[in-house]
């Protein structure tokens, strides 16, 4: 395993009396395309928010490319790109403006920001819609624009929360190829998902989280142990379905 790009130790977070993240440890090597999988409410978004400096943890340490996120947020934020689950952008800016704005926020000269924005829009297949307001974008277009914003400063580490949720297959393929290309250059990507097929297909590292705890972590092959990742995940998390005998009324044959 290479040098870790993301190190998480003893990360905890509670909301009132509910413990959302119950002390997780994680290590993702540089150049990995890592998946963080778990059922709804497992603590994926909370963990990613803390790793990216958007949510203050109760305890724990997060180091990104050697920079402690909470002790040295300036240096840590400079090396990360973030796409949040909802991919909410500036609705009243056009696609091209929002990418340029993201670049300028990151300190790029305006000319360079515009140039990179145009190239990213082209790769993300958004050039035709570059001058449309983000308010009029579909979910897939928003996700792609949000990814463009996260990539424009060429971050060594990229965090994505449910990047393909609500995205059509064509857009999903564009995003997948872009992530693979990024990782092939040595960058690190960590994304959360509950689509096991996708994670098994694209990730070389996977961590399974449930009830705020990491149940398994390692290479994708190690975690799935010869089974499909879907089956390995169900074995780890445990089936959630209750006894269905009480639903005798349910179904077309019943009245």
């Amino acid at each position, binding site marked *: 395993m290479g040098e870790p790009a993301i190190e998480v130790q003893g990360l905890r977070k509670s909301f009132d009396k509910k413990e959302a993240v119950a002390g997780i440890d994680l290590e993702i090597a540089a150049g990995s395309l890592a998946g963080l999988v778990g059922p709804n409410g497992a603590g994926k978004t909370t963990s990613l928010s803390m790793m990216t*400096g*958007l949510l203050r943890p109760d305890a724990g340490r997060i180091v990104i490319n050697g920079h402690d996120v909470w002790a040295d947020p300036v240096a840590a934020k400079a090396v990360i790109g*973030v796409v949040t689950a909802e991919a909410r952008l500036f609705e009243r800016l056009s696609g091209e403006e929002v990418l340029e704005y993201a670049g300028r*926020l990151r300190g790029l000269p305006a000319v360079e920001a515009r140039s990179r924005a145009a190239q990213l829009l082209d790769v993300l297949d958004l050039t035709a819609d570059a*001058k449309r307001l983000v308010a009029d974008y579909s979910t897939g277009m928003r996700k792609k624009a949000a990814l463009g914003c996260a990539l424009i400063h060429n971050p060594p580490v990229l965090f994505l929360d449910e990047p393909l949720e609500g995205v059509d297959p064509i857009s999903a393929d564009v995003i997948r190829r872009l992530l693979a290309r990024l990782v092939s250059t040595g960058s690190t990507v960590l994304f959360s998902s509950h689509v096991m097929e996708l994670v098994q297909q694209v990730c070389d590292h996977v961590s399974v989280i449930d009830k705020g705890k990491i149940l398994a972590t390692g290479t994708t092959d190690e975690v799935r142990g010869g089974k499909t990742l879907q089956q390995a995940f169900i074995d780890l998390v445990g089936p959630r379905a209750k006894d269905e005998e009480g639903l005798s009324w349910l179904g077309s044959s019943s009245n």
Partner: protein
Amino acid sequence: MARLLVELKLRLVANALRSSTAARVSFILSTTFAVLVAIGIFWLLAQLRPLSASVDLTTVIFSIFAIGWLIGPILAFGLDGTLDPATMALYPLRTRPLVIGLLAASAAGAWPVANVLGLLGVTIGLAHGALGVLVALLAVVLQVLFCIVLARFVITSMARLLRSRRGKDLAVFLFVPVFAIFEFLIQVIPRAVSSGSLSPSSFAGVDSWLRWLPPGLAAHAIQDASTGHLADAMARLGLVVAVIIVLGVLWVRSLQRALVTTDTTTGSSRVHNAALPLARFGLRGAVAARFWRYQSRDPASLAYWAIVVVIMFVCSASTIVGPDKHPAVVVASAVFGAAFAGSLHANPVGLTGPAFVLEATALTGRRQLRSYFAGQDFVFGAIAIPLVVGVSFALAALVKDPKEGFVAAAVGLAGLGAALAMSNIFSVALAYPMQKRAGSPLPQQAQGFGGYTVGVQFGTLASVAVAVIPVIILGNLTSNVSPAVRLPVLFGCAAAYGFGLVWLGVRAAAIAAEGKLPELCQVAMRTSL
């Protein structure tokens, strides 16, 4: 269905009460206010008994109540969650029981009950005899029913309009004249009453046309019954019932359309600007460029500036239209204009919403945060300064004292400095999530954060009022100095003073925000626009 929806509304209220202390406090304050309004209206209506124009005044009060029901939800409350047709669209509900259920749910709550109890003051103020009291009870119930159906019809129609982005944009502009009418009612009329230019006799004959509208019909029915004209009274109430039925049918049709109309975006907008402006000014320029774009493209931003203008005019309205001219009121207008220019922009995190996270990832230190606040202030100042100065001169011209316009403009400059400084500080200290409620075109504070809005508005107003005192004193001390010397000095000092306040505000806000960015991000993420 009626029982189910009433129970749903009560359950929602109970759940909201359990959610937070702020929500409980907000509910207690609102209920207390409703009780006070009920007592006040009852007392006011009861006082009309000896007046010859009692039926005219009752008609006016009933009409004002109807207008209140019409514009209240648009201004402040949005559509009650239990009444949003979109939430009912999935269920196989017949329209008639649904309408009855929604009406029953509308009538449940402190404010509808307070309305009925308050309006029952007519049983003392206008009704005479048992028959008069009986008709008064019926008239009050019909008046409140009319108000509810009217409000539901308008709000349901608006909810349909608000389903597309263009429709939402358009609806925001409806807010401005509604706000202007509201401000006129609550600011100008009480002042006219206290100055004596508006008295009970002013309303004599005013109901020559209001009497034919449902509130007037209800009021006159009480008088008819009290004077023994029962047939006339019943005919009038019959007309009110007919209007309620017609409005109900229109509401049903609007509701039927709303239930089967999908959320659509009508077309899309292309922009022609090639690049964001202010490229040479780094992060500050980038932030300013983004805020500048929003000022022209976001209807809410335009509405906020229009509200500032309305407030400035309303503050001086009694002087402009009244017999007595008080030029100093123009200075008060400038103070209020500056304060609202600040307070309406004092929650950029909530107004930006989840997109603030994109900005937050770049705000890595105190220097960047200073650029963030300075960039905003640059844009707000570029709009607010010509606006407040220009309106101050316009008001001074209207009160025929142009010289006062210079003093007001100077006070406005200092006030804007204080307002922007406080807006920066409040945007960190009292950041709160916003939400768009169905039926309300402008974003409002999320439930349970009403106190934050009040705190920001009063805090900004008080700070601006205190901050402008030195400029007002300077204006008074130099009142005998030649204008050629006085006005440039006054302007220069006020501008420098205002700039100094902004400078301090930017620094204070940056220091406060440095350790609070994660919390601000959470506020942004909780916003739903």
